[in-house]
């Protein structure tokens, strides 16, 4: 276990380094100067421009900025927003919990629905039920996640009062509300965004689970289990399903980048002020410092997620445990 954690930590460092290097290499190659890039060209005097650049350290040569950024990163400093000079770390740390909430909700939907459908399909391959569900998963898988969100808003949120069309919480709730009210309020705001992000992922999970289960059902140990007179249910659940979950756990790790990408889009649809929303907002304001920070943090989240997947796999598959 320690080895796994150490390896992922190392990977995290490499990932961050690569992203930062990519950023500054691109900056070096990109046309336009930092001032034009970050502010709309208005009638600004040369001195004001020079001062603006100097304040942000943007008048130094790019390699210098690169070094400075890396050093800052080692201290956990992600720089400051070009727009309001707030530390990027603070801006993002405010937004990350919302994204995490959304991601967790989506993952719950993804894996319960996805595994459920995959198992239903895998136990009766070639049946009409299987074919019908394949069409469903293919369609879901091919849908743009933001469009699904809009469709759900149109056909679910608009007709049903109780389900909000956006936002992470009711703006009119005051501090007096009980904990239960707050929780319920958060949940009903989380419902559609979580469902949107989760269903698209579920389609992919279902396809994977179906294949994994079919594969497991053809293994020798399943036949051996039947030969022992175990009930069919035990054979499928305890033997085939158990081992078929292993690749699905691995899938969890691989699906994280997609999940976070989807989160950016879903946050736009529902006005959910998470990391993605902040990043897109920053692009409109040409604040690439914030976008860089968001990209770095997103990558780190993926690495952490992969670590979780590794640990889960070690728990589930004794063959992958480190020799004691």
């Amino acid at each position, binding site marked *: 276990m320690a080895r796994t954690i150490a390896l992922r930590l190392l990977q995290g460092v490499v990932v961050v380094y690569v992203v930062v290097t990519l950023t500054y290499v691109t900056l070096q190659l990109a046309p336009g100067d930092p001032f034009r890039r970050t502010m709309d060209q208005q009638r600004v005097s040369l001195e004001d421009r020079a001062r603006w650049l100097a304040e942000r350290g943007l008048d130094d040569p790019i390699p210098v900025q690169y070094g400075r950024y890396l050093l800052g990163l080692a201290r956990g400093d992600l720089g400051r927003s070009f727009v309001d000079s707030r530390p990027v770390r603070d801006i993002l740390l405010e937004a990350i919990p919302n994204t995490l909430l959304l991601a967790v909700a989506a993952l719950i939907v993804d894996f319960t629905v996805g595994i459920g459908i995959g198992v239903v399909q895998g136990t009766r391959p070639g049946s009409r039920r299987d074919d019908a569900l394949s069409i469903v998963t293919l369609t879901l898988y091919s849908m743009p996640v933001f*469009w699904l969100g809009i469709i759900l808003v149109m056909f679910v949120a608009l007709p049903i009062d109780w389900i909000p069309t956006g936002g992470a919480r009711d703006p009119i709730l005051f501090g007096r509300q009980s904990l239960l009210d707050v929780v319920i309020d958060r949940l009903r705001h989380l419902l559609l965004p979580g469902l949107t992000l989760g269903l698209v992922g579920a389609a992919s999970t279902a396809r994977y689970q179906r294949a994994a289960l079919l594969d497991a059902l053809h293994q020798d140990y399943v036949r051996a289990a039947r030969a022992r007179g175990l009930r069919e249910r035990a054979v499928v659940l305890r033997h085939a399903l158990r081992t078929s979950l292993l690749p699905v756990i691995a899938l969890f790790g691989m699906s994280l*980048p997609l999940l976070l990408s989807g989160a950016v889009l879903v946050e736009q649809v529902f006005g959910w002020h998470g990391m993605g929303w902040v990043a897109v907002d920053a692009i409109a304001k040409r604040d690439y410092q914030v976008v860089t920070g968001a990209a770095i943090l997103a990558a780190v989240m993926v690495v952490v997620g992969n670590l979780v997947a590794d640990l889960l796999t070690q728990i589930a598959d004794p063959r992958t445990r480190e020799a004691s």
Partner: protein
Amino acid sequence: MSPVVRRALRQARTRSGLALAVVLGAVALFAPALTPYDPVEHLDPRDGALLGPSVAHPFGTDDFSRDMFSRIVFGARVSLTIAVVSVLIAISAGTAVGSIAGLAGGAVDAVLMRVVDALLAVPRIFLVLLVVALWDRVEVVTLILILGLTSWFATSRVVRAEVLSVREREYIGAARALGLGRMRLFFRHVLPNIAAPIVVSATLGVGHMILVEAGLSYLGVGVRPPTPSWGNIIRQGQEWILPGAWWISLFPGIAIVITVVAFSLIGDGLRDALDPRAR
């Protein structure tokens, strides 16, 4: 015809996918001939803004009185072109890097794959957003380049794996013993044998790219109005849902689903045909 292709075509779903893709390609190609209205020009709003679907306007009109059907058809042209070209770039870059890593081995391979793994860890949208934020001025050509150059990582891993397995086979040793130069070796002996999984990757990649481009255009970062892209039309339509103009956002999404389904069917069919375990 390659036995793989034949086996793929034997599946109904590959044929359906191919049929759909051909129709879509034709629509994209012959867009001007299919659309009676100009997709971009703003018309007099009193003439017919926000009309629901009708015989004259099968997909309705938007707030600028533009015919949605025409916009969506032209959107096909835009989105498909971007997707196909950027996938070609991604495949080329991925094959190049993967082959170099696989053939060179050693330190080169290790470093390249570490970098690729790192880049794979960054969610694609964040990567593209980052590059777009840094590059500042993004027209369609730049967009295609950015999309292509941020999408080659997975392909390079696949190619590297294939190259590694092909490298050890006897005919490579035989060819090298005959004194074949390295470039010749690659193009005539290695490449044809790794081509099949690359084609699968490319086909499925077009589907993914359509979704990525749509997402970016929806965010306002990809294709910008007035040029129609399915993604930015959906964005435009989002404002009009509450007032009740449901058709603006709905139809482009259906178009995307159909397109992605088509390429997924073809890609899946090809991939199953390649699978040695004939099921």
